[in-house]
């Protein structure tokens, strides 16, 4: 209720720059939470979701490696048959058996190599991300 008088009353203290800066910080944080934090959570889940030494991506990588080996050797067998036919050659039963044995041995070795390579690469990727990417990110927060 107004009394009389003609005093000059400080009704507000305005800190424009501080308020703007505070608002800007809030905007940046909201932007980070909306756009970047889900991506971070996704990466953490991919890298550490499986526990142990592997990432969650390993099973699908192993499936691809297995398919690569199978397809490569199937393709090679088909190519060999076509090439031999082109030269007018064919194999007898014994030769076919020997070829199957050799192919099986080579394919097994190749499969083991592909599986081991995939597993090792997956572990390397996990270690690299944990020590490099996410390590640096967590240090910056």
């Amino acid at each position, binding site marked *: 209720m107004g009394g009389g008088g003609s005093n000059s009353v400080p009704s*507000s203290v305005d800190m424009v720059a501080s308020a703007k800066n505070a608002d800007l910080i809030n905007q940046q944080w909201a932007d980070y939470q909306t756009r970047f934090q889900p991506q971070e959570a996704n990466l953490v889940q991919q890298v550490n979701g499986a526990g142990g030494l592997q990432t969650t991506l390993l099973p699908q990588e192993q499936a691809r490696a297995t398919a690569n080996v199978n397809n490569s050797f199937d393709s*090679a067998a088909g190519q060999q048959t076509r090439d031999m036919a082109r*030269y007018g050659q064919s194999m007898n039963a014994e030769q076919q058996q020997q070829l199957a044995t050799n*192919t099986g041995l080579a394919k097994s070795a190749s499969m083991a190599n592909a599986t081991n390579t995939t597993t090792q690469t997956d572990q390397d990727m996990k270690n690299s991300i944990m020590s490099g990417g996410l390590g640096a990110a967590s240090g910056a927060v």
Partner: protein
Amino acid sequence: MALFKQWAWLIMPHKFYGGGGSTTTTTTYNQDNPQQQALADVAQKKYDYYQANYVPLENQWMSNVSNMDSQANHDLATGMAANSLKQEAGAQTQTAGSTMQGGRMMQGNYLAGADALANAETRADMGTTNRMLQGEQGIVAMGQGQSTGAIEGLGSVAAQSVHGQNANMEHAFNQQQATQGIYGTGLGMAAAAGINKYGS
């Protein structure tokens, strides 16, 4: 209703009216100096510019990264790796002709070639996945205000996966030929004679 109006003043908020008086002056005290105000204004303008110009690009990049692990990208990388491997190995007929001179009908070459191809494709697959993870790391770095770093191109991934595979294949083949050469000499001589006579 009329009765209510008569007694309404008892329950309604009371109004007080100020007495007389001449002037009441309100003064706003701005505690920021002009430099601080300018800095705050510029910071907001920079952020608005970032939102308008960079955020759409960042969002597009995030979308691209999430697509890097798609089956189509894996197929593309393994396909490029396989093609590069075959180009480096040379034409199939030439390999066939040269192989027949030494031993069994290209048996070692086919198996070593299949192994090299599987190896190259598997490395291409892992390179594609690694590329996606690098992209995701870049996004995390972006979110932290850090630079994204260089992301390898898909072609580079495929080239790296091929590197050395042909050398491995030739080495394996040569080893096998050294073992089998004794048994295949007769057939090899006959085949070489045939090729020389009738052409390859």
